């Protein structure tokens, strides 16, 4: 009887033990799923994200990527991210716009990536220092630069022809644009130009850099929207809308629609839209050139795009997120990404490599405009401190007031800069 009890209890213990082991083994074999948040809508790189996920999962059967599109571009993603962090359910990895990296790095718990420089030195080879610097703040690596974009000027050659202008010689300076724009307006009755007006100040920073100003003083204590260069550039924009009436003052969606449907001759926006522009221009073949220069001043544009930051606190999730970063920046991943969007690859040599992006660059002439601009790329300045998001909004509101045309640019920009500078960390 006693023996029977011992046998039975031993077998019970063994059964339970084996069941537990089996469960653990089954768990170990289950793929780990990580959330990846991005801003790529179906018309803005969404299909490329899906292709990246498909190829990555085929190569890494142990990792599943739950990709989630977040509306409202980088600001919208940031808002959702802050809410998810408050709920303690952040994604493992997310795209953070260059304009928001300082805010995210300063406010959110995340993984500092310097340790991977030691453990994965090969990954960092081929990414230029000036590009990697976009993810460095206070000497630490907070994110890996992923999408790198420049603003370019898309144009409709048919409207140039209709105005009696040579479509092979679009404006290279703002003076030329004003002159040719007036002719386009007069001869075709169409608007000449639209500068993008989304919920950010990327193109505003491009105008300020381009006219020789700085969006933020070097000591980080003063917002540079009240500099003479900024005032001159923004006043020019106001005059194009309000005085000469050659430029459109429209919301972003309206502006892009109007350009693609042939109502506006030129459109300054990101090269990241080139695939969408190429496929959706109605009845004309879009072309692209670098954004106009200010007189003899050298070209200078704000660099758009994002870094990938890891928010996972679980080591297994973090490891999977790092594998994802390595893949999307690998030659294979970057090729899918650049082809599907128009973003430039951080590894510039891929553009001339016949195995990867050379055939694409040869067949996509609009990409040349981005490549020509790339050497002149300046940072898309991110305003530091806990009030950085408010500063951006103050500057967007200032632009909106300027384009309404009720007051000249100078007093609006002086007031906005004063208000914004007061919110910078002392």
């Amino acid at each position, binding site marked *: 009887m006693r023996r029977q009890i011992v046998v039975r209890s031993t077998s019970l213990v063994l059964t339970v033990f084996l069941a537990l082991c089996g469960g653990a083994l089954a768990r170990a074999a289950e793929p780990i799923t990580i959330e990846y948040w991005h801003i790529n809508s179906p018309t803005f790189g969404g299909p490329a994200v899906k292709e990246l996920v498909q190829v990555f999962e085929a190569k890494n059967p142990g990792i599943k990527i739950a990709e989630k599109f977040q509306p409202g571009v980088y600001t919208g993603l940031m808002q959702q991210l802050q809410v998810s962090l408050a709920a303690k359910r952040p994604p493992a990895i997310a795209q953070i716009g260059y304009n928001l990296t300082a805010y995210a790095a300063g406010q959110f718990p995340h993984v500092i990536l310097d340790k991977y420089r030691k453990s994965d030195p090969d990954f960092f080879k081929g990414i230029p220092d000036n590009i990697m610097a976009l993810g460095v703040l206070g000497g630490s690596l907070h994110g890996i630069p992923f999408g790198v974009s420049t603003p370019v000027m898309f144009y409709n050659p048919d409207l140039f022809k209709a105005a009696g202008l040579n479509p092979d010689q679009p404006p290279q300076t703002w003076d030329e644009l004003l002159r040719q724009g007036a002719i386009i307006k007069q001869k075709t009755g169409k608007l000449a130009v639209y500068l993008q007006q989304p919920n950010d100040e990327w193109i505003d920073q491009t105008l300020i850099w381009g006219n020789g100003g700085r969006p933020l003083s070097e000591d980080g204590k003063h917002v540079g929207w009240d500099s003479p260069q900024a005032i001159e550039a923004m006043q020019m924009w106001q005059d194009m809308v309000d005085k000469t009436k050659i430029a459109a003052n*429209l919301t972003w969606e309206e502006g892009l629609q*109007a350009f693609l449907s042939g109502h506006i001759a030129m459109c300054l926006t990101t090269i990241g839209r080139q695939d969408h522009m190429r496929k959706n221009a109605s009845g004309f073949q879009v072309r692209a050139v670098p954004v106009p220069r200010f007189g003899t001043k050298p070209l200078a544009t704000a660099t758009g795009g994002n870094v990938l930051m890891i928010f996972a606190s679980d080591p297994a999730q973090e490891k999977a997120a790092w594998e994802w970063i390595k893949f999307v920046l690998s030659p294979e991943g970057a090729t899918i990404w650049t082809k599907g969007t128009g973003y430039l690859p951080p590894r510039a040599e891929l553009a001339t490599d016949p195995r990867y992006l050379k055939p694409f660059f040869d067949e996509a002439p609009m990409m040349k405009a981005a490549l020509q601009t790339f050497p002149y790329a300046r940072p898309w300045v991110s305003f530091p401190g806990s009030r950085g998001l408010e500063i951006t*909004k103050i500057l967007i509101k200032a632009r909106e007031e300027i384009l309404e045309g009720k007051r000249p640019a100078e007093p609006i920009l002086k007031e906005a800069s004063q208000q914004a500078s007061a919110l910078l960390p002392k």
Partner: protein
Amino acid sequence: MPGRRWRAAAIGYLYLAPAAALTAVFVYWPLVASATLSFYDWNLVSPTWAAVGFANYRELAHNRAFWLALVNTAKAAAALTALTVLVPLLLAVAVLRVTGWWRNVYRVVLFSPTVISMAIACAVWLWMFHPLHGVLNTLLRYAGIQGPRWLSSGSSAIWAIIIVTVWKTFGFNFVIYIAGLLAIPAEMYEAGRVDGASERQLFRHITLPLLAPTTLFVFLTTFILSPQNLFVPTQILTQGGPNEASNNLGYLVYQLGFEYFRVGYASAAATVIFLLFLGLTAVQFYFAERRVHYGR
């Protein structure tokens, strides 16, 4: 005897308990939490809340965006209340004069905007508002009128949002008016006609007074809900811009809380708005109840 009364009262409270508990947890507790939070500075993520006293309220009093949003909300509430009370009433009266199959067709057509998702409706309106090739401005051009830049002009953006909100919400009030009109006894109209009353007199002296409870309900719900109905079109069409021209109180609270992550500041704004609407609703009930005929 007191024991029985006590037991009866206890049973009453017991029946009330589930609803009272849910209301306490999901309505009153958030109100208290929000009011408490309004005295702190917190960004949703930070582990600590910094006590700031009345600083959030003082800052709010000096915030241009808050006063603009207040004016816009008042403007929109007045316009929405006027339009979504009057338009559905006139339409309901007109539709009930149509007989047969067409009456149902009109009812379906006029109610259909109500069942469309607001986000989808806004996407359609986004296209219709396009200043260069949208349907509205194209029609206005045929009439020789230069249409506005609906969404990017400070003077028209708030009206664009009001138009979408009216279009989207009037169908609900229309159905309520139809029910209200059908409930008026037909013999009252017959008696009026026998006495030689004109159609206008019938409307003025029978329809309007007997419809008063319906109108009160429509008026109150529209007034209270209209600021909330503004949120989605504001978010999709203008994000409160250009330069705050189409902002409203509900959206401002969202901006302060979830765009700038100043949750304490947003709570201060929410508390002020709550008190404002509480007062307005109390005044409305007090005056409106005195002018309603219930047909008894």
